[in-house]
């Protein structure tokens, strides 16, 4: 009797950990809300990474100990944080000068959809009656040097999030460099999705079936 192989892919923490491997020592990084926030917990030994939060802090640290928070020291998700030694506070125009001016090395964002040309949709489903809210997402992807996306490979309903072209309202055009999903690490190269790495126990056909565009498999690279 053979054991049925259960395909699960990476957990949220594993995706964050995989992404953290690609963030170099000395990088200035902005992490989006959700899975991207977990990346901060997985910086490899020996690397120092400085976190930027667009509401005016460079050198953001971990959440405060319970009861020790300050309602005037928060992150872009409006959660209480701390400031590391070497931190600096500044106003919103200076903060977005860092972003728009290309001074941040990496941002890591969530996604509703990513197209094979690197378009990102992550701010609105375009549903009627929804309250549209964009925050700093469009600024980040327009300005930060390298844009990483961490996302489940498909929606809860099994719909592909990696697609030929986005159907949701765009956050930006041609901006995503690399995507970390539960199933694979995928680069956007010359208008195509290129598989860089498969999660343990996952084969490329399995990923292709769950992707809305043609993948360039590992073997061809």
């Amino acid at each position, binding site marked *: 009797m053979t054991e049925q192989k259960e395909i699960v892919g990476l957990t949220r923490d594993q995706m964050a950990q995989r992404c953290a491997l690609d963030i170099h020592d000395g990088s200035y990084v902005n992490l989006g809300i959700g899975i991207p926030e977990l990346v901060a917990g997985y910086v490899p030994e020996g690397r120092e990474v400085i976190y930027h*939060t*667009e*509401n*005016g*802090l460079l050198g953001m640290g971990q959440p405060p100990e319970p009861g020790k928070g*300050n*309602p*005037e*020291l*928060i992150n872009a998700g*409006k959660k209480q944080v701390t*400031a590391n030694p070497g931190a600096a*506070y*500044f*106003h*919103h*125009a200076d*903060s*977005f000068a860092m*972003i*728009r001016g290309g001074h941040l090395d990496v941002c890591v964002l969530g996604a509703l959809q990513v197209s094979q040309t690197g*378009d990102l949709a992550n701010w*609105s489903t375009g549903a009627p*009656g*929804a*309250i*549209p*809210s*964009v*925050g*700093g*997402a*469009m*600024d980040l992807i*327009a*300005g930060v040097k390298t844009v990483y996306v961490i996302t489940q490979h498909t929606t809860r309903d099994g719909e592909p999030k990696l697609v030929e072209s986005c159907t949701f*309202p*765009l*956050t*930006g*055009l041609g901006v995503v460099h690399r995507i970390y999903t539960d199933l694979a690490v995928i680069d956007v190269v010359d208008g195509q999705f290129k598989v860089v790495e498969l999660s343990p126990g996952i084969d490329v056909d399995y990923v292709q079936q769950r992707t809305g565009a043609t993948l360039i498999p590992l073997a061809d690279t």
Partner: protein
Amino acid sequence: MINKKVANVEEAVADVFDGATVMIGGFGEAGSPIELIHALIDQGATDLTVVNNNTGSGEVGLAALIKAGRVSKMICSYPRSTNSTVFPDKYRSGHTELELVPQGTLAERIRAGGAGIPAFYTPTAVGTPLGEGMEVRTFDGRQYLMAYGLTADFALLKGKTADYHGNVVYNKTARNFGPLMATAAKVTIVQAASVVSIGELDPEVIVTPGIFVKRVVAVPDPQHESTLVAAGVSYP
């Protein structure tokens, strides 16, 4: 002699008029001048255009101003927040119009307004729904959108310490939009936990020089939005 200190928040906001554009500092609760906003609710001005990153939380501060029906238009980047329950109704009923602006473009538009720059170009929002209707121009092979400077009749801000000349320092991430809005409003009003004598603030660390500030008012123990919301407070 220059003395910009006024006696109380009521006096500070007494001249806000119907139809005014009012910039309100704060990112979420950090930097939100709750006492000035509550004074504005009591004062009664209506048909306001409000500029703030968000739309408030619970039924205090900015959310209470919206709930009271005083805001006919919001200019902001992120109206949909946790506990932001008041704005959706006013928006869907058509009472409050929404101008949604990416956060960095909003910040830069306010800075430009204060700096006498009528318009600038930004790469943010190119090719997106928020770039629709904006002028597109190519520099060095890349597309940019033209954004306009933004000014206001009043700014209501929260500082940590101010002096009688209107110099202001802020507290941590409560700084956010404050220093920008201070420059962009005709009448900038700052509540600060303490208002100190001239010379007590180090000239090297002042964030908002007094030239941008018309009035300061001491609010020694400012309330925090999250505390009020958790306690279920509804203003007034």
